[in-house]
């Protein structure tokens, strides 16, 4: 949020963490992305909202350098090389993908271990992160012993511990029930606010987009293009129920739903 405001004040373009320009992609004869332009400022969270199957996940994998680019350009911190984008970003897929044989702390510590970290020290850092994310006492739990919401938190911890400046979150809470999802949205919002990472958050939930992110890019159905970018209202750190019923939030949600409807 701070970064977006800064841009307005100075009038000059702020440095960009993620820049996507004229990005198009197709699977065989099916066009999934049609000329996407996006920018994410450092520390900013941009939500990508669109109907299911519109190509949001593909967009995220392209940014992460996990799929070869067909047309257009993607930069992270000014670097277009796929290997650099993979190194500078941490991707979180829809399913938690925890390794069933590793305890929660070891799952969260995967990136640390891959970076050559000592096992003990990595575990300690991971356990501290789990504490911070409200999972104290579960460092030694196996994924099979955790609830869906807890597993999702471990997956977020794993993503954060990669230590990359860019986070790419693909519908992190889509598989959860409404109550857990609401709780985790509050939690993610606070977590992202304290982390100062640049984040792309894919979701099909307008409310989640406007509540968790700073801005929401509304995408059209396949092939996806940006229909509108909506600023999230600056809601003070209030309870989620209050925040999402504030008049500014209701107005933003109405605008977002309108452009989603117009796009469809």
């Amino acid at each position, binding site marked *: 949020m701070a970064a977006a405001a800064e841009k307005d004040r100075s009038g000059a373009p702020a440095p960009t963490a993620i820049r996507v320009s004229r990005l198009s992609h197709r699977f065989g004869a099916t066009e999934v992305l049609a000329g996407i332009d996006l920018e994410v400022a450092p520390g900013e969270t941009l939500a990508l909202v669109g109907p299911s199957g519109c190509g949001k996940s593909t967009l995220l994998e392209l940014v992460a350098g996990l799929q070869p680019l067909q047309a257009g350009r993607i930069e992270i911190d000014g670097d277009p090389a796929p290997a650099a984008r993979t190194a500078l970003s941490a991707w979180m897929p829809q399913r938690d993908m925890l390794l*069933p044989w590793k305890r929660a702390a070891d799952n969260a510590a995967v990136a640390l271990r891959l970076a050559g970290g000592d096992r003990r020290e990595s575990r300690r850092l991971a356990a501290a992160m789990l504490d911070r994310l409200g999972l104290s006492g579960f460092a030694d739990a196996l994924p*099979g012993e955790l609830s869906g919401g807890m597993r999702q938190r471990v997956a977020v911890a794993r993503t954060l511990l990669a230590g990359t400046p860019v986070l790419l979150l693909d519908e992190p809470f889509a598989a959860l029930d409404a109550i857990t999802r609401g709780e985790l949205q509050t939690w993610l919002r606070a977590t992202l606010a304290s982390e100062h990472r640049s984040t792309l958050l894919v979701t099909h939930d307008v409310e989640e987009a406007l509540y968790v992110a700073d801005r929401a890019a509304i995408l059209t159905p396949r092939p996806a293009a940006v229909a509108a970018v909506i600023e999230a209202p600056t809601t003070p750190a209030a309870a989620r129920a209050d925040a999402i019923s504030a008049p500014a939030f209701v107005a933003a949600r109405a605008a977002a739903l309108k452009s989603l409807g117009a796009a469809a």
Partner: protein
Amino acid sequence: MNGRLASVLRLWPTALAVLALLGAWQLAASTGALADALGLDSFLVPSPAEIGDSLWTDRGLLADNAWVTLQEVVAGFAAALALGIATAVVLHLSPLARRISYPLVIASQTIPVIVIAPVLVVWFGFGIGPKVAIIALICFFPIAVNALDGLGTVPAEQRKLMRSLGAGRLRVLTMLEAPTALPFVLSGAKIAAAVAVIGAVFGEWAGANDGLGHLMLVDNAQLEVPRLFAAMVWLSAMAIALFALLSMLERRIAWWGAAERRPPGAGGDR
């Protein structure tokens, strides 16, 4: 209910069935009914009691030969495990190697072992060499195919995640694919364990001075039918013991796969 008690109770039907079978066999053999029905002399159709007697009186001879066969089985099985896993890893990592040599892996299973065994004895001599080679040949296939399938069950999304978290190809293999394949490898090893003893017998038939297979050949020639059956009991016991050992290992080191065979992270809410 107590888990141990429950598993003992579950074994009851099996125990009863075996006892009933042995009882019927004993009755049929001791009255001569079985030999008459088969049109054979009664000394050719041993009763369970006669086999039990041979197990006891020939225990030294049987144990000595079983020890020889056990060494062959363990060595051959270990060689198959190493070769099978190595082959699976190479074929998994290289699509080209897979295209070239997967047919050869399958062909290895079509080799008629009984025919090739004498040739191997000519090549490697009367020692343990040809037996190990034959056992390894038989055990290789289920291990290699299961390991390859196991390595292939990792979803592409999971591999992408590891890459995103900084893993190179080798770390994806060691940290993700190898543990995922472990339960599959152990399944293959269990199948291999059951057939390994047959390989040992084939090997010993082709040329050996000792071992249970050799003993069975001698017993066959001398019409020592009860001892022949006693040797079979030893062979079965060996295969069952190896199988049980692997099952135990599976529960110990691959517990997540034994409980539910599914790719990692596929689980939903609990």
